[in-house]
């Protein structure tokens, strides 16, 4: 299964070791639980597709330029949010939010979508991320249960997507690879190999199902019911294997966009971000996936290429430790503003496309934020968080207590519910996001 990039996967039950092996049923089978059932029962239950994109910039944004002063609906846009003025009614900005007990400075980025406490401490194990949690339920509805993307990612060290077992799902760092995966068909040999593996999995499950049936025969009602559930689990998995096989034969969507050219130099960070936003948009447009994460590994980025007239002299990470130096602050601000600009373009792109009766943005939740409240001091409280699209009543600044922060996982619960999932908690949530309502 060489053709399946590692970034496309969800809820993989197997360990990273299993994943790395390139032969046998090992690769194919763990993916199957997320594949689409042949007759797509769930699709009928949720007629409006909902999607999510989670973005973490692990150096954050200058808080004094990002957070608006006033709260509520009539708040005045902050300098950074001014750049998103035309989308004002399409996003909500939060302040005074954090992940409870997620500390430890830089390593906290891996917990941005998991909210697992104490990423820096010994014995830490991450937990399932928001996208994987959603993909576990709705991943089978699309060709790719989820996409895990990154920019300048320190491979194997950083990712926003984590399996239920707390295993890192590697990020795809090349936009061209994402494009190929989404829109180019694999070679006949690759398809045939994949189909054979699926058929092998199917025959394993057939044997299991058969034994389950034979055991059921002479049991009492209560025990039979337990085995019935077992049988159903086996059959459901078989259905998903069949659906996965179907995807192998189905042609991939055709798009007019051209294959992106990956910048070779990590200094072209901003261009890479732009391309990844494009890939996410294309994936949503073609309903190829509904759960995407994007780790912007700014910590791992060098001195960036100049941005519109601002000459950058220091590494991104180094700039973030600005120590209030005016020279560094102005460079950092130029970078931050470029981030806002690209985000605005992404919003505009998703608004320009309609699906059914809605602009695509109304069906797509975009969470943009950071694990650091202030990179200068490495604090993991008062996180900058911006939340757009998805059909919520936006256009407000929800300000919470900056001393005792409000739990950000509550937003995740709201997002899951918007996806149509019956989730009432996620990680350390205490409810849904206070003040955020669906339209």
């Amino acid at each position, binding site marked *: 299964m060489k053709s399946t990039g590692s970034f496309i996967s969800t809820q993989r039950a197997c360990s990273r070791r299993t994943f790395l092996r390139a032969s*046998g049923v090992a690769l194919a089978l763990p993916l199957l639980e997320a594949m689409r059932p042949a007759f797509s029962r769930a699709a009928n239950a949720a007629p409006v597709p909902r999607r999510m994109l989670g973005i973490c910039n692990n150096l954050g944004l200058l808080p004094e330029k990002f957070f608006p002063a006033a709260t509520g609906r009539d708040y005045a846009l902050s300098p950074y949010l001014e750049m998103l003025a035309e989308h004002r009614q399409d996003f909500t900005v939060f302040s005074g939010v954090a992940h409870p007990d997620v500390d430890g400075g830089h390593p906290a980025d891996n917990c941005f979508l998991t909210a697992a406490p104490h990423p820096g401490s010994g014995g830490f194990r991450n937990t399932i991320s928001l996208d994987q949690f959603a993909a576990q339920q709705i991943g089978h509805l699309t060709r790719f249960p989820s996409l895990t993307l990154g920019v300048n990612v320190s491979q194997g060290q950083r990712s926003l997507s984590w399996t239920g077992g707390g295993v890192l799902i590697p990020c795809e760092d090349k936009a061209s690879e994402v494009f190929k995966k989404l829109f180019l068909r694999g070679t006949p040999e690759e398809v045939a190999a994949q189909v054979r593996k699926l058929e*092998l999995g199917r025959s394993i499950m057939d044997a*299991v199902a058969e034994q*389950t049936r034979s055991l059921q025969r002479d049991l009492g009602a209560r025990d039979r019911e337990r085995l019935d559930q077992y049988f159903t689990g086996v059959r459901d998995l078989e259905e998903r294997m069949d659906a996965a096989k179907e995807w192998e034969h189905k042609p991939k969507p055709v798009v007019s966009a051209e294959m992106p050219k990956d910048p070779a130099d990590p200094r072209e960070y901003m261009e890479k971000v732009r391309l990844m936003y494009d890939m996410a948009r294309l994936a949503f447009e073609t309903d190829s996936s509904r759960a995407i994460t994007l780790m912007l590994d700014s910590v791992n980025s060098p001195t960036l290429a100049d941005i519109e007239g601002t000459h950058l002299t220091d590494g991104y990470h180094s700039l973030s430790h600005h120590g209030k130096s005016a020279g560094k602050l102005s460079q950092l601000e130029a970078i931050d503003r470029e981030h806002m600009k690209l985000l605005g373009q992404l919003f505009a792109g998703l608004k320009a496309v309609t699906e059914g009766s809605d602009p695509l943005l109304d069906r797509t939740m975009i969470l943009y934020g950071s694990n650091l409240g202030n990179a200068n001091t490495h604090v993991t409280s008062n996180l900058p968080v911006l939340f757009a699209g998805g059909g919520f009543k936006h256009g407000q600044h929800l300000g919470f207590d900056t001393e005792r922060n409000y739990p950000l996982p509550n937003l995740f619960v709201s997002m899951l519910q918007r996806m149509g999932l019956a989730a009432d908690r996620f990680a350390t949530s205490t409810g849904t996001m206070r003040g955020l309502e669906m339209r």
Partner: protein
Amino acid sequence: MFRSPKRFAVLCLLMGAAAARAEVPAGMQPFLEDRCMQCHDADTKKGGLDLDVLGFDLKDAKTFAAWVKVHDRTAEHEMPPKKKPQPKPEEADAFLKALAAPLTAADRERAAREGRSSWRRLNRYEYENTLRDLLEAPWLEVRVMLPEDGEAFRFNKVGEALDVSHVQMARYLGAADYALREVMARQVAKPETKVTRCYAREQKAFAGKAKFSEFNRSAERATFPMLDNAADIPALEGIAPMTVGVADAEKREREAFGVVASSYEPIELKFSSFRAPSAGRYKLRFSAYSFWAAPESEKAWWKPDRKNLSAGRTREPVSIYASTPPHLLRKLGAFDVTPEPGMRELDVWLLADETIQPDAARLFRSRPGNPGGWHNPLAERDGQPGVAFRWMEVEGPIIAQWPTAGQRLLFGDLPMKENGKTVEAVPNDPHADAARLLKTFLDRAYRQPVADADVQRFLAVIEGAMKSGSSFTEAMVAGYSAVLCSPGFVCREERPGALDDFALAARLAYFLWNSPPDEPLRAAAARGELRKPQVLRAQTDRLLADPRSHRFVNAFLDYWLDLRRAEATSPDATLYPDYYLDDLLVESSVEETQSFFAELVKANLPGSNLVASDFAMLNERLAAHYGLPVNTKITDHSGESDGSAEKSAPHPIVEGVAIQRVKLPPDSVRGGLMTQASVLKVTANGTTTSPVLRGAWIMERIIGKPPPPQPASVPNIDPDTRGATTIREQLAKHRSEESCALCHTKIDPAGFALESFDVLGGWRDRYRAVGEGEKVPGFGKNGNAFVFHLAQPVDASGTLPGGGDFKNIRELKQLLLKDERQIARNLAKQLLVFATGAPVRFGDRPELEQILDHASANHYAVRTLIHEVVQSGLFQNK
């Protein structure tokens, strides 16, 4: 019969109700009429109980539970309420007998028909242990690959809660495939056992932190190049290379890197030049010692001077973790280092590609936030302690036999050949070999004799795979995967009535090992001997003596006492900076409770020890936490500690990181489970404690009198961390309402006594609060100055519901000790749920009392209780 026309009218409307009443056995009617109906009729329905419509259909679970409640409230003299006329004892007895008989009969009838427990799959602990034992691969990490198990009656052992979905099935498939491939040979020749030495000076993680950079200019966050006890100034200043290397073996041996900080972002030590080439057994040896760093200056005495180092003065615990990127850490063990550079060895199992991370666990972890930078809490006017590492030596993988047991189980003695990066088995006759190997595998994997139909079923998978082009090896893996996903493997097969020998063997092994039966146990089952009491007793002792019994102890405590949640919350950085980031304390606290229970089993100590014991299982960190004498400074001693458990009374000094049995001073507040740090941690939230939550937990888990669930309409009390009011004052208003008091008098008392202990079980006389107030000088483990203040004093007094006042935790324990049978009853109940997968129901009570009767002469000693559970009908029938 009906006292008022109104009631009569109501009942006539509810014709069904009249019929329902009529179902109740005649022997119970007079008591109900005289003592119950006044409040519990269709009209008043006090407490939601309406005896007019309840009926007596004991097959209905709700009806059954309601009558059990009627029975118990009456038996406990809670009903009728004290203010109403009380029934004569013989009147109540007659009623209780009349009620108990049909309840017991109904329960037993159901148990005979369907068994007490339901058919169930293995939980994820059991599945992991089963694969580890079957494939003889103790390193397999399967548990985390499976979804979290549902729990019922507090355990992950009950069929009704162990669901199966397509997600579960897919995970089994992934886990089975992972485990099988993990034990398959990766090369034909036996891998060489190598001895590799990794010098600290040559490790990137050490050397990279020796020089200051734009991200760090603090010595606390840097490594210290050292030569013996002195600073290696040429190396520090970059004049000399970081190591002399092979050119000067003698000097190379003396080179080291020191730290004054514990491993934490941004300084994490790692011997990354070693990565485990394959999963397996390894020996790790470390050369390390403690040192002393002089102050940078008289003014900034809490900062270390990297150029001014000398011999160590302290004994320092070092934890060793195995690490998988990005930050997956498994603790492998711990040892102490002293000023003498000794060699410490750990015998461990590693996963392929793991690297080794040492952590000098007592040292501080600098976090930003303190005005003026961090301040090492361990610093003294004349310097601070540090730990220096010379090298790590690895021996491994240590392979006892080749091909490995796992490879032999899967492929017998078939020759192997390398095929690209994989190794394939070469069959003589693929069909005959497949059938033979599969049969052997099934015999080992299944815990009961294998039906021929099953062999054929899985053989078809293998044959089909070969036909469609899979290699022999891949086809076998597919067949084995099917076996490991099949209910015959994944489920515990128990049939109503007395368990057959194989099911009994499985029940015993999954009870005392949380693992499948081993060969001797299966052999006893096959001989049909297991049901003989003396054979069963001998097997029970054998299993308990085996190291695998730790799996029972740990899994049992993970659920009974919620130990699996020990790391779920963490001490608040503002209120408890002295515990915040103290991994060693939390790890030790879990070990304490595990060792404590294991000791009760091993030494067969009375069950009352669960409430109060005259000893504790401690290491130095815990002893310090509990205010017992410790001595970290060892400059005055010879520098040697033998770690012996025999400490001279009356003031034993606990030394070192290893858990030891320690005799407690007679006036100690410790001893027993309730005052162990782990229990006090899992019953708090890291910031505040609540007598209600702790009280309810203790009543249910330790005392075995679970309080009724919290009414949905009543919100939790939000404790005030500003220090103005205590939780007790906040509760007082609530408790003064009669309807609330009814439950709270039962829930809160133990919680009140435990208010003397903070969120991590440290003793307190006064609460800590944020904001203004009496400050406490000091610095946290994070190097930040304390900003909390001491607020209201703690009042730990209370009254037990049955009477009995106590002023503090010690008096509470004495009161609880009066009923040692109740403490034992609760433990036996918990063991029975864990062992049988079903709760102790009404009809099981007589047998439970019998278990207790048999153990009473021995003061309900814990191992005796386990024996009596195993010998009981509850255990030996489904």
